[in-house]
């Protein structure tokens, strides 16, 4: 088996203690560990001390209040999709969470961990020995990005499946550190850089996620499409998350769209708003947005499938997601693309 290096584990039972522990030395947080442990076994993430959030009782609460829905950071992915209200109010979010990895991993993995999950690249998610044989890369210890050898930056892709849809639904997150607390729109937590992919400071704990009532299914129609090779386990190689608000006569009043896994951060397709607002969703408008999305997507050769095909598929999936929202039947037979509706 791959082994973990020797580490010190702390499992505080208050948030304050956790924040305190996190503020000193080479320390990292762990929640479900489904991302951190494999990364530490492969030695591309290191820490002397790992602070677990799983013993803090109030951190895993899911609260479907009258207005906003609040989900504690350590609620597991399985908890999220088992919650009837979450499923009813935010079906595309629930669908995205249900698409994450596999049932055993969803029982361990948390929503907070998913939002903070490391960016991925097939030159990086490898063992220490393997990375030695390519002399490492920019993201960890090396000098060159092997995906784009002349590039000064890292192109590792965002891996979180809940992030694009939560950004589209205007979710906010609360970050707590030993020095204070702040709330920010989730979309502002991501940075389009494979290495420093979070605007969250290392000493900050994501404690809570808030999805506004305005994004509830009764007011907002949303869709999530995920491209992967197999029906389970696989990370996205490209995903599309869309939310559309309309008036009573189906005229769009607001629209948001984010692409997953084709950039270091969820990539906003801002044009969706300009193209759709004041109009009903039509074939032509869908085609226009799909075309723009294809330009925005920056798939690199660092995950499954060829980059160019993933680019083409962006166009297809944007079309499919918007047609789903507009209630149009799928254009083509869509084998296996469609995720199970939960």
């Amino acid at each position, binding site marked *: *088996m*791959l*082994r*973990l*290096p*020797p580490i010190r584990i702390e499992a505080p039972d208050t948030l304050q203690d956790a924040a305190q522990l996190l503020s000193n030395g080479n320390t990292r947080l762990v929640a479900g560990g489904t991302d951190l442990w494999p990364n530490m076994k492969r*030695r591309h993430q290191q820490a002397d001390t790992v602070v677990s959030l799983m013993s803090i009782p109030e951190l895993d609460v899911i609260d479907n209040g009258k207005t906003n829905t609040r989900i504690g950071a350590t609620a597991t992915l399985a908890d999220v999709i088992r919650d009837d209200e979450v499923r009813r109010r935010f079906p595309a979010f629930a669908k995205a969470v249900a698409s994450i990895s596999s049932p055993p991993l969803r029982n361990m993995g948390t929503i907070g961990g998913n939002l903070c999950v490391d960016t991925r690249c*097939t030159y990086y*998610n*490898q*063992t*220490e*020995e*393997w990375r*030695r*044989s*390519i*002399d490492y890369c920019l993201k960890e210890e090396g000098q*060159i990005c*092997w995906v784009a*050898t002349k590039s000064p930056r890292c192109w590792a892709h965002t891996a979180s499946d809940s992030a694009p849809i939560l950004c589209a639904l205007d979710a906010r997150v609360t970050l707590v550190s030993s020095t204070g607390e702040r709330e920010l729109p989730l979309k502002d937590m991501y940075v389009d850089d494979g290495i420093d992919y979070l605007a969250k400071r290392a000493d900050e704990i994501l404690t809570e996620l808030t999805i506004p009532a305005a994004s509830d299914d009764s007011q907002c129609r949303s869709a999530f499409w995920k491209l992967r*090779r*197999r*029906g*389970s*386990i*696989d990370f996205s190689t490209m995903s599309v998350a869309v939310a559309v608000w309309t008036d009573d006569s189906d005229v769009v009043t607001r629209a948001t769209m984010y692409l997953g896994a084709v950039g270091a951060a969820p990539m906003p397709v801002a044009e969706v708003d300009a193209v759709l607002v004041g109009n009903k969703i039509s074939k032509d408008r869908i085609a226009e947005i799909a075309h723009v999305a294809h330009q925005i997507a920056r798939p690199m050769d660092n995950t*499954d*499938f*060829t980059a160019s*095909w993933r680019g*083409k*598929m962006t166009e*297809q999936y944007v079309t499919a997601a918007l047609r789903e929202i507009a209630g149009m039947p799928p*254009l*083509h*037979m*869509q*084998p*296996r*693309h469609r995720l199970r509706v939960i």
Partner: protein
Amino acid sequence: MVKVYSVPPDERPGETASELRIVGKPFRRVDGRAKVTGQTRFADDLQFPRMVHIKLVRSTVAHARIRNIDLSAALAMDGIVGTLVGEELPNSFGIMPVSEDEYALAIDTVRFVGDPLAAIAAVSEDIAHAAALAVIVEYEPLATIASVAEALTTPEPQIHEYADEGNIHKKVSLKFGDVEGGFEEADLILEDDFFYEGSNHLALEQHSSLAVAEDDDRVTVYSSTQCPHYVHRALSKTLDIPASRIRVIACSNGGGFGGKSDPFNHEIIVAKMALKLGRPAKITLTREEVFYCHRGRHPVQMHLKTGFRKDGTMTSQHLQTTLDGGAFGSYGVASTFYTGALQTTTYKLPHYWFEGARAFTNKPPCGPKRGHGTPQPRFAYEVQLDKAAHELGIDPADLRLRNLVEADTITANWLQIGTIGLKECIDAVVKGSGWKEHYGRLPEGRGLGIACSAYMTGAGLPIYWNHMPQSGVQIKLDRSGNVAVFCGETELGQGSDSILTAVVAEVLGIGLKDIRLCVGDTDLTPVDLGSYSSRVTLMVGQAAKQAAEKARDKIAEAVSEHMEVAMESLVFADGQVFPAHEPKQRIGFNEAVVIAESRFGTLGTTGSYIPPRAPGRFRGSGVGPSPTYSYSAAVLAVRVDPETGVYDIDRVWIAHDIGRALNPVLALGQIEGSVYMGLGEAMMEEQAFRRLPKRLSSALVHKMPSMLEYKSLGFHDMPEMTCYLIETDDVRGPYGAKEAGQGPLLPIMPALSNAIFDAVGVRVDQVPIHPELVLKGLQAKRQGREARVGPEKFPDINYGEPLIVHTPGQGGDGRAANDPKASRKGVRSASGTMKDRDEALKEHSSATLTTD
């Protein structure tokens, strides 16, 4: 899932069918309960007091001379108990006697990323791992070779000096009959290039071995291996200890599929470390290391030329293959022959020319994976037949039916065919899938594809030349009524333990639970060559049957004297022995054993099996012969999205001629597993590599040595499947049985390619069939170019002078017409009994070698 038997079990033909109580019934597998409840002890479950853990230091450079190995930082760590480097194990090894090119630890040269060069033993796995990372190795890099094309253009530096030529390990050219004349008779000649990507076995259990040394240079090695006997031989050679002092115990395997049939570095290293330290030593590989052990499917490029008459019959075929072998020989010489050997076993081919070459490359060694060397040319052949059917306007199923090989004939390349149920297989899947109504008539985007195949039921010859049985079984009986069965076979999950038990229970008329098995232990069990080449059911089954029949006869003799009835009248059934005409006069089986033990003393019998002698006498004729061949036919239904190339397999129909299913449930499990694995190769599996830009790096690495990123089907992705068991009782197999473990994989890949053509008119001449490729083909079609994706050209390669062999049809005698090194008469006995073999041996003749 629907499962249909061709014939319901109790209505099967054959004179013995009604008398059989266990054979042919879906009895519960003997190891099932232990496996389901977690009681089975796999190698990694074993623990011994004072055991040390080993970690291998593996090369991080693809091809280099080793300048220095600095172990000092590792040795300075607390808990390090010992180390090993290459010089301490100077004897080379390798599964094939002609390519013993491996060292337990690299001595001067490393040949691929992952090649082990040092071993560290520590009191815990954590420490061993940390210490292995602390070892500093200095390399002097050498040019790397990543493909067959590069091997051809880069003869120097040689990866191995013994190669046939430069970095071409092995070249073969075998010409049967008048190939050119055959092409002249053809109305249609098709020439196509194909590529079949390499893949790993991906057995769930990672390799694990543990060695325990005893005081006087004796050592016991427990290992996850398919072939304890070959491990035994390799250990003796590399450790320089007589085999009599080495004991190899094959643990239950969590899957093998060919990936555990070589002797491996880590097996030698645990033994050496245990002897060196006087402490038990254990290693369990990581998944990444399993990808480095590899021995999986060779990437093969093929050029196939076949002549057809208007009526669809074939006149001649010329097949050229190149195999990307990786850094070592492994089974590669046999694999090379196998890319040509079985082309003749399904359809009549009067003239046939096979040329094959295997290259050394700086990648993990390829070897045998389910279907060993034959799925690649089978893919090429079956796709080309589909093209021919299309060109000739003949239904692809009919085209195949028109060409079927006949039972009990000899092929152009001198293979003896046994029973053949391929017609029944085709009929079953054609009927089941509604082929006649739907093929070619489904709406755009939906399609059906058909393909067939054949596979060996055990290789006719052992890996190393010898005159001994390929399988042996011993039975010990005593007054307790317990019957102990000893056999060198190994259980991989395929059900071999159950088959062995069933055969003995059937003959002795006792229950499965009255039998104690002792298997895969080189100290205690007679040699069986191992679980490979689909040989176990037939060979172990025959040896077991022989041993059991001897035991039964011994008991019958004593009981007949005791009861004063004729021996022949005694029946063994339901744990009783009784005269057929007087069932009331029954005695219990253990009472019968008491009578026999009283009469003859201690009871024990043996059985052995040697395959019948194959008719071929030319060099290279050793690869391909088998006691008999199994046959399969499959139809796949697909839906293809014309906008994206994404496709979905709706359903699979597969029929398999198994001879006789000794246990239909186990047989269906093998067929379903084959389809599953076949779909993985057809759709996505790739042992792919990355080479970094040469101006920046000399790296050549496995692209994704992890179970997540190496894509293989999950059960989520399995389509619905209908299996048909076709029974054609073959006298060469026990109770008529042939194989089921490998053959049903073979038609899946071509059937998928053919189905995609039916759906969208795109030819995909390579596997795996990624959606990107289908889309590329669709785009080409739309732009009016050839709607085909696949390799564009075949490497320029000189295979050398062919060995000319006249076919049976030409009145040949099985020998080469132009071979100066021609062998004399073979020693294989025609019937395969020990007596015949002895007589054959008396003639003091040498034999046709497997390979040379």
